[in-house]
Protein backbone atom coordinates (compact mmCIF):
# COMPACT_ATOMS: atom_id res chain seq x y z
CA UNK A 1 0.00 0.00 0.00
CA UNK A 2 1.23 3.46 -0.81
CA UNK A 3 2.25 5.70 2.06
CA UNK A 4 0.26 8.88 2.29
CA UNK A 5 0.60 11.82 4.59
CA UNK A 6 -2.33 11.38 6.91
CA UNK A 7 -2.19 14.69 8.71
CA UNK A 8 -3.12 16.75 5.66
CA UNK A 9 -6.78 16.99 4.98
CA UNK A 10 -9.30 19.09 3.18
CA UNK A 11 -12.55 19.70 5.03
CA UNK A 12 -14.98 22.02 3.40
CA UNK A 13 -17.15 24.39 5.39
CA UNK A 14 -20.82 23.68 5.42
CA UNK A 15 -22.85 26.80 5.02
CA UNK A 16 -26.20 25.09 5.31
CA UNK A 17 -27.96 24.36 8.57
CA UNK A 18 -26.28 21.55 10.40
CA UNK A 19 -28.01 18.40 11.46
CA UNK A 20 -25.10 16.99 13.37
CA UNK A 21 -21.46 17.73 13.90
CA UNK A 22 -18.49 16.04 15.47
CA UNK A 23 -15.76 17.84 17.27
CA UNK A 24 -12.40 16.19 17.70
CA UNK A 25 -13.87 12.74 17.76
CA UNK A 26 -11.48 9.94 18.70
CA UNK A 27 -12.32 6.27 18.84
CA UNK A 28 -10.26 3.57 20.47
CA UNK A 29 -10.81 -0.17 20.43
CA UNK A 30 -8.69 -0.99 23.43
CA UNK A 31 -5.25 0.19 22.32
CA UNK A 32 -6.24 0.45 18.72
CA UNK A 33 -6.84 4.07 17.77
CA UNK A 34 -9.49 3.69 15.06
CA UNK A 35 -10.67 7.26 14.39
CA UNK A 36 -8.41 10.30 14.66
CA UNK A 37 -9.69 13.85 15.27
CA UNK A 38 -12.82 13.69 13.23
CA UNK A 39 -14.29 17.17 12.75
CA UNK A 40 -17.27 16.95 10.45
CA UNK A 41 -20.49 18.90 9.97
CA UNK A 42 -23.43 17.12 8.42
CA UNK A 43 -25.90 19.37 6.61
CA UNK A 44 -29.60 19.08 7.20
CA UNK A 45 -31.86 17.41 4.59
CA UNK A 46 -28.90 16.25 2.54
CA UNK A 47 -27.32 12.91 1.90
CA UNK A 48 -23.74 12.62 3.02
CA UNK A 49 -21.72 9.61 1.93
CA UNK A 50 -18.78 8.11 3.80
CA UNK A 51 -16.38 6.26 1.53
CA UNK A 52 -13.02 4.63 1.97
CA UNK A 53 -11.26 1.28 1.78
CA UNK A 54 -12.29 -1.63 3.92
CA UNK A 55 -11.25 -1.18 7.54
CA UNK A 56 -10.69 2.56 7.28
CA UNK A 57 -13.23 3.21 10.01
CA UNK A 58 -16.43 4.13 8.19
CA UNK A 59 -18.66 1.88 10.26
CA UNK A 60 -16.86 2.82 13.42
CA UNK A 61 -17.42 6.50 12.80
CA UNK A 62 -21.05 6.04 11.84
CA UNK A 63 -21.84 3.95 14.87
CA UNK A 64 -20.57 6.66 17.18
CA UNK A 65 -23.17 9.05 15.90
CA UNK A 66 -26.03 7.35 17.69
CA UNK A 67 -23.94 5.87 20.46
CA UNK A 68 -24.02 2.33 19.12
CA UNK A 69 -20.37 2.09 20.09
CA UNK A 70 -21.12 2.38 23.80
CA UNK A 71 -19.52 -0.62 25.49
CA UNK A 72 -17.70 -1.58 22.31
CA UNK A 73 -15.22 1.24 21.97
CA UNK A 74 -14.03 4.30 23.85
CA UNK A 75 -15.28 7.44 22.14
CA UNK A 76 -13.76 10.80 23.07
CA UNK A 77 -14.72 14.22 21.76
CA UNK A 78 -18.02 15.89 21.16
CA UNK A 79 -20.97 15.04 18.96
CA UNK A 80 -23.25 18.04 18.76
CA UNK A 81 -26.93 17.55 18.02
CA UNK A 82 -29.38 20.35 18.69
CA UNK A 83 -26.74 22.21 20.66
CA UNK A 84 -26.28 19.24 22.95
CA UNK A 85 -23.21 17.09 23.23
CA UNK A 86 -24.81 13.70 22.83
CA UNK A 87 -21.53 11.96 23.48
CA UNK A 88 -21.73 12.96 27.13
CA UNK A 89 -22.36 10.21 29.64
CA UNK A 90 -25.27 12.19 31.09
CA UNK A 91 -27.24 11.90 27.90
CA UNK A 92 -30.17 9.53 27.63
CA UNK A 93 -28.92 7.28 24.83
CA UNK A 94 -32.33 5.78 24.22
CA UNK A 95 -33.67 9.19 23.29
CA UNK A 96 -30.65 9.84 21.11
CA UNK A 97 -31.34 6.70 19.15
CA UNK A 98 -34.96 7.62 18.66
CA UNK A 99 -33.87 10.78 16.93
CA UNK A 100 -30.94 9.32 15.10
CA UNK A 101 -32.02 6.06 13.49
CA UNK A 102 -29.79 3.45 11.97
CA UNK A 103 -30.00 0.83 9.23
CA UNK A 104 -27.38 -1.87 8.96
CA UNK A 105 -25.52 -3.63 6.20
CA UNK A 106 -27.29 -6.92 6.62
CA UNK A 107 -31.05 -6.59 6.88
CA UNK A 108 -32.03 -7.40 10.46
CA UNK A 109 -35.79 -7.51 10.82
CA UNK A 110 -37.10 -8.95 14.07
CA UNK A 111 -38.47 -12.46 13.96
CA UNK A 112 -41.96 -11.03 14.11
CA UNK A 113 -44.64 -10.09 11.63
CA UNK A 114 -44.10 -7.18 9.25
CA UNK A 115 -46.56 -5.10 11.20
CA UNK A 116 -45.05 -5.98 14.57
CA UNK A 117 -41.62 -5.04 13.27
CA UNK A 118 -42.76 -1.51 12.76
CA UNK A 119 -45.09 -0.90 15.67
CA UNK A 120 -43.00 -2.70 18.26
CA UNK A 121 -40.67 0.20 18.88
CA UNK A 122 -43.50 2.71 18.56
CA UNK A 123 -45.44 1.01 21.30
CA UNK A 124 -42.37 1.01 23.46
CA UNK A 125 -41.97 4.70 22.86
CA UNK A 126 -45.41 5.10 24.39
CA UNK A 127 -47.53 5.42 21.28
CA UNK A 128 -50.62 3.38 21.93
CA UNK A 129 -53.52 4.82 19.98
CA UNK A 130 -54.51 2.41 17.30
CA UNK A 131 -55.07 5.11 14.69
CA UNK A 132 -51.70 6.63 15.20
CA UNK A 133 -50.02 3.25 14.97
CA UNK A 134 -51.87 2.29 11.80
CA UNK A 135 -51.12 5.63 10.30
CA UNK A 136 -47.41 5.45 11.04
CA UNK A 137 -47.27 1.87 9.82
CA UNK A 138 -48.73 2.79 6.47
CA UNK A 139 -46.81 6.03 6.19
CA UNK A 140 -43.42 4.50 6.92
CA UNK A 141 -43.96 1.55 4.61
CA UNK A 142 -45.00 3.95 1.89
CA UNK A 143 -41.94 6.11 2.44
CA UNK A 144 -39.76 3.05 2.20
CA UNK A 145 -41.55 2.07 -1.03
CA UNK A 146 -42.66 -1.21 0.45
CA UNK A 147 -46.34 -0.60 1.07
CA UNK A 148 -47.64 -1.90 -2.24
CA UNK A 149 -45.72 -5.11 -1.96
CA UNK A 150 -46.76 -6.01 1.57
CA UNK A 151 -50.03 -4.27 2.30
CA UNK A 152 -52.00 -7.49 1.98
CA UNK A 153 -49.61 -9.50 4.11
CA UNK A 154 -48.89 -7.33 7.07
CA UNK A 155 -49.15 -10.27 9.44
CA UNK A 156 -46.70 -12.39 7.53
CA UNK A 157 -43.33 -13.06 9.13
CA UNK A 158 -40.78 -10.44 8.14
CA UNK A 159 -38.25 -13.21 7.66
CA UNK A 160 -40.25 -14.46 4.70
CA UNK A 161 -39.49 -11.30 2.74
CA UNK A 162 -36.69 -11.13 0.18
CA UNK A 163 -33.42 -9.49 1.16
CA UNK A 164 -34.25 -6.23 -0.55
CA UNK A 165 -37.69 -6.13 0.98
CA UNK A 166 -36.25 -6.86 4.40
CA UNK A 167 -33.84 -3.98 4.02
CA UNK A 168 -36.63 -1.61 3.03
CA UNK A 169 -38.60 -2.88 6.01
CA UNK A 170 -35.66 -1.96 8.23
CA UNK A 171 -35.65 1.51 6.71
CA UNK A 172 -39.39 1.78 7.29
CA UNK A 173 -38.94 0.62 10.85
CA UNK A 174 -36.40 3.33 11.38
CA UNK A 175 -38.43 6.13 9.89
CA UNK A 176 -41.59 5.10 11.68
CA UNK A 177 -39.90 6.53 14.75
CA UNK A 178 -39.79 9.88 12.91
CA UNK A 179 -36.10 10.45 13.53
CA UNK A 180 -34.23 13.55 12.46
CA UNK A 181 -31.27 11.76 11.07
CA UNK A 182 -30.91 8.43 9.37
CA UNK A 183 -27.62 6.55 9.46
CA UNK A 184 -27.14 3.77 6.92
CA UNK A 185 -24.20 1.38 6.92
CA UNK A 186 -23.81 -0.12 3.45
CA UNK A 187 -27.54 -0.75 3.25
CA UNK A 188 -27.44 -2.16 -0.27
CA UNK A 189 -24.26 -4.17 -0.36
CA UNK A 190 -26.05 -7.46 0.19
CA UNK A 191 -28.68 -6.73 -2.41
CA UNK A 192 -29.16 -7.22 -6.13
CA UNK A 193 -29.20 -4.19 -8.45
CA UNK A 194 -32.97 -4.02 -8.64
CA UNK A 195 -33.34 -3.90 -4.89
CA UNK A 196 -30.43 -1.52 -4.72
CA UNK A 197 -31.98 0.96 -7.09
CA UNK A 198 -35.26 0.74 -5.19
CA UNK A 199 -33.41 1.63 -2.01
CA UNK A 200 -31.58 4.47 -3.70
CA UNK A 201 -34.87 5.88 -4.94
CA UNK A 202 -36.28 5.60 -1.47
CA UNK A 203 -33.37 7.54 -0.04
CA UNK A 204 -33.81 10.27 -2.62
CA UNK A 205 -37.40 10.84 -1.54
CA UNK A 206 -36.59 10.54 2.14
CA UNK A 207 -34.05 13.28 2.00
CA UNK A 208 -36.85 15.83 1.87
CA UNK A 209 -37.57 15.09 5.52
CA UNK A 210 -34.45 13.49 6.86
CA UNK A 211 -30.77 14.17 7.06
CA UNK A 212 -29.07 11.05 5.81
CA UNK A 213 -25.56 9.76 6.36
CA UNK A 214 -24.67 6.68 4.39
CA UNK A 215 -21.61 4.44 4.33
CA UNK A 216 -21.03 2.76 1.02
CA UNK A 217 -18.19 1.04 -0.75
CA UNK A 218 -19.91 1.48 -4.05
CA UNK A 219 -18.46 4.66 -5.53
CA UNK A 220 -21.11 4.84 -8.24
CA UNK A 221 -23.72 4.74 -5.58
CA UNK A 222 -22.05 7.48 -3.60
CA UNK A 223 -21.78 9.70 -6.63
CA UNK A 224 -25.35 8.93 -7.71
CA UNK A 225 -27.15 9.70 -4.51
CA UNK A 226 -25.11 11.83 -2.17
CA UNK A 227 -24.72 15.58 -1.90
CA UNK A 228 -21.60 15.51 0.21
CA UNK A 229 -18.90 12.92 0.47
CA UNK A 230 -16.28 12.26 3.12
CA UNK A 231 -13.30 10.10 2.27
CA UNK A 232 -11.70 8.23 5.17
CA UNK A 233 -8.32 6.57 5.19
CA UNK A 234 -6.84 4.62 8.09
CA UNK A 235 -9.07 6.39 10.57
CA UNK A 236 -8.42 9.88 9.26
CA UNK A 237 -10.90 12.06 7.44
CA UNK A 238 -8.82 12.95 4.40
CA UNK A 239 -11.32 14.94 2.42
CA UNK A 240 -14.82 16.25 2.88
CA UNK A 241 -16.50 18.16 0.14
CA UNK A 242 -19.53 18.26 -2.10
CA UNK A 243 -19.83 14.95 -3.91
CA UNK A 244 -19.25 16.51 -7.31
CA UNK A 245 -15.98 17.97 -6.13
CA UNK A 246 -14.80 14.83 -4.43
CA UNK A 247 -15.35 12.78 -7.58
CA UNK A 248 -14.32 15.28 -10.19
CA UNK A 249 -11.83 17.57 -8.45
CA UNK A 250 -10.44 15.75 -5.47
CA UNK A 251 -8.20 18.03 -3.48
CA UNK A 252 -6.09 15.39 -1.79
CA UNK A 253 -3.82 12.81 -3.35
CA UNK A 254 -5.28 9.74 -1.56
CA UNK A 255 -8.79 10.75 -2.53
CA UNK A 256 -7.78 11.18 -6.11
CA UNK A 257 -6.14 7.76 -6.17
CA UNK A 258 -9.11 6.17 -4.51
CA UNK A 259 -11.85 7.55 -6.76
CA UNK A 260 -9.80 6.87 -9.84
CA UNK A 261 -9.05 3.31 -8.75
CA UNK A 262 -5.27 3.69 -8.44
CA UNK A 263 -5.27 3.28 -4.73
CA UNK A 264 -3.46 0.75 -2.59
Amino acid at each position, binding site marked *: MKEYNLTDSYITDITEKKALSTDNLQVYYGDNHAIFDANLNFPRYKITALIGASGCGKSTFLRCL*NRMNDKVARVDGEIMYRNTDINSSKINV*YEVRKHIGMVFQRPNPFA*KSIKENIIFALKNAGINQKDELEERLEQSLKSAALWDEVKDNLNKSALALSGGQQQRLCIARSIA*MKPDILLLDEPASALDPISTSKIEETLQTLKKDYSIIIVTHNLQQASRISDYTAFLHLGHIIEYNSTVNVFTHPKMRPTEDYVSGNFG
Partner: protein
Amino acid sequence: MNAKKIDHLATGVIYTLVISVIVILIAILGYILFNGVPDISWHFLTSAAQSFSAGGGIRDQLFNSLYLLILTIIVSLPIGLGAGIYLSEYAPNNWTTELIRTSVEVLSSLPSVVVGLFGYLLFVIKLNLGFSILSGAIALTFFNLPLLTRNIEESLRGVPDLQREAGMSLGLSSWKTTTKIVLPAALPGILTGLILSAGRIFGEAAALIYTAGQSAPTVDYTNWNIFSTTSFLNPMRPAETLAVHIWKVNTESVTPDAHLISSASSAVLIIVILIFNLGARFLGNKLYNKITASK
Protein backbone atom coordinates in the same frame (compact mmCIF):
# COMPACT_ATOMS: atom_id res chain seq x y z
CA MET B 1 -6.53 -47.14 0.57
CA ASN B 2 -7.92 -44.18 -1.30
CA ALA B 3 -9.94 -41.38 0.13
CA LYS B 4 -13.20 -42.75 -1.13
CA LYS B 5 -12.65 -46.13 0.49
CA ILE B 6 -11.73 -44.46 3.78
CA ASP B 7 -14.87 -42.38 3.48
CA HIS B 8 -16.96 -45.52 3.10
CA LEU B 9 -15.16 -47.17 5.97
CA ALA B 10 -15.63 -44.19 8.28
CA THR B 11 -19.26 -43.96 7.33
CA GLY B 12 -19.61 -47.61 8.11
CA VAL B 13 -17.97 -47.20 11.50
CA ILE B 14 -20.20 -44.27 12.36
CA TYR B 15 -23.32 -46.14 11.33
CA THR B 16 -22.17 -49.07 13.46
CA LEU B 17 -21.70 -46.80 16.46
CA VAL B 18 -25.05 -45.13 15.92
CA ILE B 19 -26.80 -48.44 15.53
CA SER B 20 -25.21 -49.85 18.66
CA VAL B 21 -26.28 -46.79 20.61
CA ILE B 22 -29.78 -47.12 19.24
CA VAL B 23 -29.78 -50.77 20.22
CA ILE B 24 -28.67 -49.85 23.73
CA LEU B 25 -31.34 -47.16 23.96
CA ILE B 26 -34.04 -49.47 22.71
CA ALA B 27 -32.85 -52.20 25.05
CA ILE B 28 -33.03 -49.94 28.08
CA LEU B 29 -36.33 -48.33 27.21
CA GLY B 30 -37.69 -51.67 26.09
CA TYR B 31 -36.57 -53.33 29.30
CA ILE B 32 -38.26 -50.71 31.41
CA LEU B 33 -41.44 -50.51 29.39
CA PHE B 34 -41.71 -54.24 28.79
CA ASN B 35 -41.36 -54.96 32.49
CA GLY B 36 -43.56 -52.11 33.59
CA VAL B 37 -46.33 -51.40 31.14
CA PRO B 38 -48.29 -54.64 31.67
CA ASP B 39 -48.69 -53.72 35.32
CA ILE B 40 -49.93 -50.22 34.75
CA SER B 41 -53.62 -49.96 35.33
CA TRP B 42 -56.08 -47.24 36.05
CA HIS B 43 -56.24 -48.53 39.59
CA PHE B 44 -52.45 -48.32 39.88
CA LEU B 45 -52.44 -44.71 38.75
CA THR B 46 -55.30 -43.57 40.92
CA SER B 47 -54.92 -45.27 44.26
CA ALA B 48 -52.70 -44.54 47.20
CA ALA B 49 -49.54 -46.47 48.00
CA GLN B 50 -49.60 -49.31 50.51
CA SER B 51 -46.91 -49.92 53.09
CA PHE B 52 -47.26 -53.62 53.82
CA SER B 53 -49.89 -55.02 51.55
CA ALA B 54 -49.95 -55.57 47.81
CA GLY B 55 -52.07 -53.61 45.38
CA GLY B 56 -50.84 -50.12 46.20
CA GLY B 57 -50.81 -47.39 43.60
CA ILE B 58 -48.85 -44.27 42.91
CA ARG B 59 -51.49 -41.56 42.78
CA ASP B 60 -49.87 -39.26 45.32
CA GLN B 61 -46.33 -39.89 44.13
CA LEU B 62 -47.23 -39.10 40.56
CA PHE B 63 -48.98 -35.92 41.54
CA ASN B 64 -46.13 -34.94 43.85
CA SER B 65 -43.61 -35.41 41.08
CA LEU B 66 -45.55 -33.17 38.75
CA TYR B 67 -46.22 -30.59 41.41
CA LEU B 68 -42.60 -30.55 42.48
CA LEU B 69 -41.52 -30.22 38.88
CA ILE B 70 -43.78 -27.23 38.37
CA LEU B 71 -42.72 -25.61 41.63
CA THR B 72 -39.05 -26.15 40.84
CA ILE B 73 -39.47 -24.59 37.44
CA ILE B 74 -41.34 -21.69 38.97
CA VAL B 75 -38.49 -21.16 41.41
CA SER B 76 -35.56 -21.81 39.11
CA LEU B 77 -36.65 -20.53 35.70
CA PRO B 78 -36.81 -16.83 36.64
CA ILE B 79 -33.49 -17.05 38.45
CA GLY B 80 -31.96 -18.98 35.58
CA LEU B 81 -33.30 -16.44 33.10
CA GLY B 82 -31.97 -13.53 35.11
CA ALA B 83 -28.59 -15.12 35.55
CA GLY B 84 -28.43 -16.30 31.94
CA ILE B 85 -29.28 -12.82 30.72
CA TYR B 86 -26.68 -11.38 33.03
CA LEU B 87 -24.00 -13.70 31.72
CA SER B 88 -24.82 -13.25 28.06
CA GLU B 89 -25.77 -9.58 27.96
CA TYR B 90 -24.24 -7.75 30.87
CA ALA B 91 -21.29 -9.66 32.21
CA PRO B 92 -17.99 -7.95 31.47
CA ASN B 93 -15.36 -10.17 29.95
CA ASN B 94 -13.09 -10.53 32.94
CA TRP B 95 -11.97 -12.89 35.63
CA THR B 96 -14.90 -12.24 37.95
CA THR B 97 -17.27 -13.40 35.29
CA GLU B 98 -15.10 -16.44 34.72
CA LEU B 99 -15.18 -17.10 38.45
CA ILE B 100 -18.94 -16.87 38.52
CA ARG B 101 -19.22 -19.20 35.56
CA THR B 102 -16.84 -21.67 37.10
CA SER B 103 -18.63 -21.72 40.41
CA VAL B 104 -21.97 -22.20 38.72
CA GLU B 105 -20.56 -25.11 36.78
CA VAL B 106 -18.96 -26.64 39.85
CA LEU B 107 -22.40 -26.60 41.40
CA SER B 108 -23.72 -28.62 38.48
CA SER B 109 -21.36 -31.48 39.05
CA LEU B 110 -21.91 -31.81 42.78
CA PRO B 111 -23.34 -35.20 43.70
CA SER B 112 -27.00 -34.81 44.44
CA VAL B 113 -26.69 -36.49 47.85
CA VAL B 114 -24.53 -33.62 48.92
CA VAL B 115 -27.05 -31.12 47.67
CA GLY B 116 -29.76 -33.04 49.42
CA LEU B 117 -27.98 -33.06 52.76
CA PHE B 118 -27.14 -29.41 52.43
CA GLY B 119 -30.79 -28.66 51.71
CA TYR B 120 -31.75 -30.78 54.67
CA LEU B 121 -29.55 -28.92 57.10
CA LEU B 122 -30.26 -25.46 55.74
CA PHE B 123 -33.90 -25.49 54.63
CA VAL B 124 -35.48 -28.35 56.51
CA ILE B 125 -33.77 -27.68 59.83
CA LYS B 126 -32.32 -24.16 59.96
CA LEU B 127 -35.00 -22.31 58.04
CA ASN B 128 -37.62 -24.55 59.56
CA LEU B 129 -39.33 -25.35 56.29
CA GLY B 130 -39.56 -28.98 57.37
CA PHE B 131 -39.73 -31.90 54.98
CA SER B 132 -41.76 -30.18 52.35
CA ILE B 133 -42.29 -29.75 48.66
CA LEU B 134 -40.85 -26.30 49.05
CA SER B 135 -37.60 -27.59 50.58
CA GLY B 136 -37.45 -30.14 47.79
CA ALA B 137 -38.06 -27.53 45.13
CA ILE B 138 -35.30 -25.33 46.50
CA ALA B 139 -32.87 -28.23 46.67
CA LEU B 140 -33.71 -29.22 43.11
CA THR B 141 -33.25 -25.62 42.11
CA PHE B 142 -29.66 -26.02 43.22
CA PHE B 143 -28.66 -28.42 40.59
CA ASN B 144 -31.21 -27.34 38.07
CA LEU B 145 -29.93 -23.77 38.06
CA PRO B 146 -26.42 -24.33 36.74
CA LEU B 147 -27.60 -26.31 33.74
CA LEU B 148 -30.49 -24.00 33.08
CA THR B 149 -28.35 -20.88 33.39
CA ARG B 150 -25.71 -22.27 31.12
CA ASN B 151 -28.26 -23.33 28.58
CA ILE B 152 -30.09 -20.01 28.61
CA GLU B 153 -26.82 -18.12 28.32
CA GLU B 154 -25.78 -20.13 25.29
CA SER B 155 -29.15 -19.88 23.60
CA LEU B 156 -29.08 -16.13 24.03
CA ARG B 157 -25.56 -15.95 22.69
CA GLY B 158 -26.71 -17.87 19.66
CA VAL B 159 -28.98 -15.02 18.62
CA PRO B 160 -27.02 -12.85 16.17
CA ASP B 161 -25.90 -9.43 17.38
CA LEU B 162 -27.72 -7.97 14.40
CA GLN B 163 -30.95 -8.44 16.32
CA ARG B 164 -29.64 -6.60 19.36
CA GLU B 165 -28.35 -3.77 17.20
CA ALA B 166 -31.73 -3.51 15.53
CA GLY B 167 -33.43 -3.11 18.87
CA MET B 168 -30.91 -0.69 20.25
CA SER B 169 -30.86 1.49 17.17
CA LEU B 170 -34.58 2.05 17.64
CA GLY B 171 -34.03 3.53 21.07
CA LEU B 172 -35.20 0.45 22.92
CA SER B 173 -33.59 -0.20 26.27
CA SER B 174 -31.32 -3.21 26.31
CA TRP B 175 -33.72 -4.84 28.75
CA LYS B 176 -36.59 -4.56 26.26
CA THR B 177 -34.37 -5.68 23.45
CA THR B 178 -33.29 -8.69 25.43
CA THR B 179 -36.67 -9.72 26.71
CA LYS B 180 -38.77 -8.93 23.67
CA ILE B 181 -36.44 -9.56 20.76
CA VAL B 182 -33.56 -11.76 21.78
CA LEU B 183 -35.37 -14.01 24.20
CA PRO B 184 -38.16 -15.02 21.81
CA ALA B 185 -35.58 -15.75 19.15
CA ALA B 186 -33.71 -17.94 21.62
CA LEU B 187 -36.86 -19.76 22.70
CA PRO B 188 -36.31 -23.08 20.92
CA GLY B 189 -32.90 -23.50 22.50
CA ILE B 190 -34.11 -22.52 25.93
CA LEU B 191 -36.96 -24.96 25.57
CA THR B 192 -34.65 -27.86 24.87
CA GLY B 193 -32.70 -27.00 27.98
CA LEU B 194 -35.86 -26.78 30.01
CA ILE B 195 -37.02 -30.17 28.81
CA LEU B 196 -33.69 -31.73 29.65
CA SER B 197 -33.68 -30.28 33.12
CA ALA B 198 -37.31 -31.25 33.63
CA GLY B 199 -36.29 -34.81 32.88
CA ARG B 200 -33.55 -34.60 35.43
CA ILE B 201 -35.85 -33.13 38.06
CA PHE B 202 -38.38 -35.82 37.41
CA GLY B 203 -35.86 -38.56 37.83
CA GLU B 204 -34.01 -37.14 40.82
CA ALA B 205 -34.18 -39.09 44.03
CA ALA B 206 -31.07 -38.59 46.14
CA ALA B 207 -31.56 -34.88 46.70
CA LEU B 208 -35.20 -35.31 47.62
CA ILE B 209 -34.90 -38.09 50.17
CA TYR B 210 -33.69 -35.58 52.73
CA THR B 211 -35.70 -32.57 51.64
CA ALA B 212 -39.10 -33.34 50.20
CA GLY B 213 -39.12 -36.46 52.32
CA GLN B 214 -39.97 -40.09 51.77
CA SER B 215 -43.57 -40.19 52.79
CA ALA B 216 -46.70 -39.23 51.00
CA PRO B 217 -49.36 -38.28 53.51
CA THR B 218 -52.84 -38.63 52.21
CA VAL B 219 -54.06 -35.35 50.84
CA ASP B 220 -57.41 -34.05 49.86
CA TYR B 221 -57.61 -33.41 46.14
CA THR B 222 -60.69 -31.28 46.54
CA ASN B 223 -59.16 -28.85 48.98
CA TRP B 224 -57.90 -25.91 46.96
CA ASN B 225 -56.83 -23.86 49.93
CA ILE B 226 -53.07 -24.00 49.60
CA PHE B 227 -52.57 -23.03 53.25
CA SER B 228 -54.54 -25.97 54.53
CA THR B 229 -52.36 -28.84 55.67
CA THR B 230 -54.52 -31.38 53.93
CA SER B 231 -54.64 -29.53 50.65
CA PHE B 232 -52.90 -31.21 47.74
CA LEU B 233 -51.54 -27.82 46.80
CA ASN B 234 -49.95 -27.06 50.14
CA PRO B 235 -46.25 -26.63 49.37
CA MET B 236 -45.36 -27.11 53.04
CA ARG B 237 -46.34 -30.75 53.18
CA PRO B 238 -43.89 -33.61 52.78
CA ALA B 239 -44.07 -35.26 49.43
CA GLU B 240 -42.57 -38.47 48.21
CA THR B 241 -42.02 -38.31 44.46
CA LEU B 242 -42.19 -41.12 41.98
CA ALA B 243 -38.41 -41.46 41.74
CA VAL B 244 -38.08 -41.51 45.51
CA HIS B 245 -40.88 -44.04 45.65
CA ILE B 246 -39.04 -46.27 43.24
CA TRP B 247 -35.95 -45.93 45.36
CA LYS B 248 -37.79 -46.66 48.59
CA VAL B 249 -39.76 -49.57 47.24
CA ASN B 250 -36.56 -51.11 46.00
CA THR B 251 -34.48 -50.55 49.07
CA GLU B 252 -36.65 -50.78 52.15
CA SER B 253 -40.10 -51.85 51.23
CA VAL B 254 -41.70 -54.95 52.66
CA THR B 255 -44.67 -54.83 50.33
CA PRO B 256 -45.01 -58.18 48.62
CA ASP B 257 -45.39 -56.61 45.17
CA ALA B 258 -42.41 -54.25 45.50
CA HIS B 259 -40.88 -55.49 42.29
CA LEU B 260 -44.04 -54.88 40.35
CA ILE B 261 -44.53 -51.41 41.79
CA SER B 262 -40.97 -50.49 40.99
CA SER B 263 -41.08 -51.56 37.37
CA ALA B 264 -44.51 -50.13 36.72
CA SER B 265 -43.49 -46.83 38.33
CA SER B 266 -40.36 -46.67 36.21
CA ALA B 267 -42.44 -47.17 33.10
CA VAL B 268 -44.91 -44.50 34.19
CA LEU B 269 -42.03 -42.14 34.85
CA ILE B 270 -40.60 -42.62 31.41
CA ILE B 271 -43.96 -42.24 29.75
CA VAL B 272 -44.63 -39.02 31.65
CA ILE B 273 -41.24 -37.63 30.67
CA LEU B 274 -41.99 -38.54 27.08
CA ILE B 275 -45.36 -36.83 27.20
CA PHE B 276 -43.79 -33.81 28.82
CA ASN B 277 -41.05 -33.75 26.23
CA LEU B 278 -43.42 -33.89 23.28
CA GLY B 279 -45.90 -31.53 24.88
CA ALA B 280 -43.32 -28.92 25.71
CA ARG B 281 -41.93 -29.13 22.21
CA PHE B 282 -45.36 -28.77 20.68
CA LEU B 283 -46.36 -25.86 22.87
CA GLY B 284 -42.96 -24.26 22.45
CA ASN B 285 -43.21 -24.40 18.68
CA LYS B 286 -46.69 -22.95 18.82
CA LEU B 287 -45.48 -20.14 21.03
CA TYR B 288 -42.44 -19.54 18.88
CA ASN B 289 -44.53 -19.42 15.74
CA LYS B 290 -46.95 -17.05 17.35
CA ILE B 291 -44.25 -14.68 18.52
CA THR B 292 -42.31 -14.78 15.30
CA ALA B 293 -45.39 -14.83 13.07
CA SER B 294 -43.88 -17.69 11.13
CA LYS B 295 -46.88 -19.71 9.99
